[in-house]
C-alpha cells in the first residue's frame, strides 16, 4: 500500500500514539497536504512544538523538528527563524501550551509579525496530562480540575491573536478538512505571523466528562457551533453568542515582517557609519 504524504513522515515511528478518533490526525494531514501542494521541500522546513499531544507531531514528521519545553515553542521558533530566515518555520501547539503557559510568547510573536506559521490545536482541555481545564475550556464545562464545572471565562484565541497584531488569523474545525487545508496553505504563503486556530476534539479527556464521549458526536457538536465568516458579518452580536466564526478572519499584508524590518535597521545602522 502506498501512503500519500509518506515522504513527510517518519514511517518507522508508526503507529502513532494519538487516541483513535482524535482530530489531530486530520490537522496533521492538513498541514502535510499544504506542504505538498506548495511543493515545500522537507529540508526547508523546521517544525517545532512545545508540550502536549501536539508535541508528538515533531516525532512523526520527517523534517527538521524540535520538541521544546512547555509553552516555549514560539520562543525557540523565533530563534530558528531569526537565524535561518530562508526556512519555513511552523509551530504546532495546543490551547494550554500556547495560551496558558506560553500565552506571553504568543502575543509577542503576534506583535512582532515574525514569519512563522502557528497551528493552534484548540481542544478545550489539557489532553495529555489528563484533562485539566485550560484557558479555552468553556465556563461550566467539567474537567479533572473542575469536577463541578469550570468557573473561568475562556479565551477567544483568534480574537486574541488578531488584537495582539497577527497579520493572518484563520479558524477552522476538524469536521471541515478541505477548508482547514486551504487556511493552513494560506498561512504558509503569508509573509508574517500567521495563526490558524483549529477547533479539535478531545473526546478522551473533554468529551467523556461532558457527555460527548463519541468522537463523531464531539466533532458534530463543535461543527454545530461554527459560523462561516461570510455569514457572521450579517449576524448580530446576540446571534453570534456561543458561536465560533470560521474562515479567514483577518489578513493584513501592509505590515512589515519582523526579520525584514530588523535587516532594514541593520542596513540603516551600517550605512550611517
Amino acid at each position: 500500500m502506498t501512503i500519500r504524504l509518506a515522504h513527510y513522515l517518519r514511517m518507522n515511528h508508526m503507529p502513532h500514539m494519538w487516541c483513535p478518533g482524535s482530530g489531530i490526525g486530520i490537522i496533521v494531514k492538513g498541514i502535510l497536504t499544504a506542504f505538498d501542494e506548495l511543493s515545500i521541500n522537507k529540508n526547508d522546513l523546521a517544525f517545532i512544538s512545545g508540550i502536549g499531544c501536539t508535541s508528538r507531531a515533531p516525532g512523526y514528521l520527517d523534517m527538521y523538528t524540535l520538541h521544546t519545553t512547555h509553552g516555549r515553542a514560539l520562543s525557540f521558533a523565533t530563534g530558528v527563524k531569526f537565524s535561518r530566515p530562508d526556512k519555513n518555520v511552523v509551530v504546532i501547539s495546543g490551547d494550554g501550551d500556547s495560551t496558558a503557559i506560553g500565552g506571553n510568547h504568543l502575543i509577542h510573536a503576534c506583535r512582532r509579525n515574525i514569519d512563522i506559521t502557528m497551528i493552534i490545536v484548540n481542544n478545550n482541555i489539557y489532553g495529555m496530562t489528563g484533562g485539566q481545564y485550560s484557558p479555552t475550556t468553556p465556563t461550566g464545562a467539567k474537567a479533572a480540575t473542575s469536577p463541578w464545572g469550570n468557573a473561568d471565562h475562556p479565551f477567544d484565541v483568534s480574537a486574541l491573536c488578531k488584537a495582539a497584531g497577527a497579520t493572518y488569523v484563520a479558524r477552522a474545525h476538524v469536521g471541515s478538512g478541505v477548508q482547514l487545508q486551504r487556511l493552513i496553505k494560506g498561512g504558509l504563503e503569508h509573509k508574517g505571523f500567521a495563526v490558524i486556530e483549529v477547533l479539535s476534539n478531545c473526546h478522551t479527556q473533554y468529551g467523556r466528562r461532558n457527555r460527548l464521549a463519541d468522537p463523531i458526536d464531539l466533532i458534530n457538536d463543535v461543527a454545530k457551533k461554527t459560523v462561516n465568516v461570510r455569514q457572521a458579518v450579517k449576524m448580530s452580536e446576540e446571534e453570534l453568542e456561543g458561536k465560533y466564526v470560521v474562515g479567514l478572519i483577518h489578513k493584513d499584508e501592509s505590515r512589515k515582517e519582523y526579520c525584514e524590518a530588523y535587516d532594514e535597521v541593520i542596513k540603516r545602522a551600517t550605512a550611517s557609519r
Partner: protein
Amino acid sequence: MQKVLTGNQSAAWGAMCAQAQVVSAYPITPQTTIIEELADLVAKGLLDAKFIKVESEHSAMAGCIGAQATGARTFTATSSQGLALMHEELHWAALARLPIVMADVNRAMAPGWSIWTDQNDSLSQRDTGWLQFYCESNQEVLDTVIQAYKIAESVDLPVMLVLDAFFLSHTYEAVEIPGQEATRKYLPPYKPSIYLDVKDPHAFGGIVPQDVYMEFRYKMQVAMNEALDVSVKADEDYKAMFGRGYGVIEQYRMDDADTILVTSGTVASTTRAVIDDMKAKGQSVGMLKMKMLRPFPADLVREALEGRKRVAVLDRNICPGMGGIWSQEIRNALYHTPESKRPDVYGYIVGLGGRDVTPEVIEKIALDVQERPIKDGEQVWIGLKE
C-alpha cells in the same frame, strides 16, 4: 481511617489533613493526580480551601507566595520541568520566609524527554533555601506533608517533600489517614507573625541596601540550622501521637556493618530487601537512608558512618562535572573525621531517567564496592549500555 491510595493521592490527603487553605497549581505529568485529587477534595467540601489552577508553574508558586503572605496555609505540587520553571519563585518563597509546603514528584529533566523518575529536578533546587525530604512509601508521603507544615511554620522556611515518579506517585498502598481533627492536635492553625493586614500595614519585597542584606541571609541560615533539630523533634512528636516516625536519616541494620549503602527515595525500600538477603548470607552490609537533604544532617551522617570501612552512595542523579550529588554531600560531611575512622566513599550512578534499580543492581554494587580500589572522585555508572 485507612484508604488505598497512590503516592500522589497520599500527598493530597496529607494537605487535606493539614487543612491547607489555598492550593495553587499547574498540571504536569506525573504530578497531575495530586492536584486533581485536591480539586476533588475541595469540590466535595472535604477540604475547606480555595483551589487556583493557574497558567504555569511559575504562577503556581507566585500564587502560593501571595496567599501565604495574607496568612493562609498553602500547598502546591509539581515535577521536573515545572519545578525548574518555578526556580525564581522558589528563591522568593524561601527568602521571603514563607512556610509553603510543596510536593515534587521526581522526574528526569529534558532533553531527551522523559517522564520517569530521577532526582535531578529537586536536587538542582538544593540552594534555594527550601528544606527537602525524600520519601520512600505512600504512608511516608502523607505523614511528611503533615510534618512539613509543623517544621515550616516553626522556622518560617518552605519545605519540599519529594516522591519518585510512578514507583510512588502512581502505585497504590494502604495508607493510614489521621484526619483533620487528630492532625489539628499535632499541627495547630497557622498563625504568622507578620502578614498582609490592612489594620497593621507592612511593605513586602522592598529593596534592601548593602548594609542590611547580609543580615537577612544570616537570619535565614540560623533558621536553617534550627530546622534540623526542629525536624527531628517534629518527627518524634508525630511518632508519639500517631505511631509512625521516620527520622531525618535512618540506619537500617547498620549495627557493626563494614559496608554501608547510602540510598534515598524508593531505592531505599528495594535496598532493605537486598540487605536482609545479604545479611542472611553472612555479608557485613547495612543501609543509611537519607530522608533530609536540606538542612544537611552532617553530624548525624558522620556519627552513622564513622568507623565503617566503605560507603557506597547510590545516586539517582548526576551533577555533570562533579558526580552524584548525595555522594558529594556525604564526602563533605566526613571531611573532618579522623583518617583512622573515615570510610572510603564511592559514588555509584544508578537509575537515571527511570531505569529500574533492581535488587540485582543493588547487590552488584554492594559486592563491587568491596573489591574496588578507591579512586579520588570516581563515579561508577551502573548498567550502562555499550
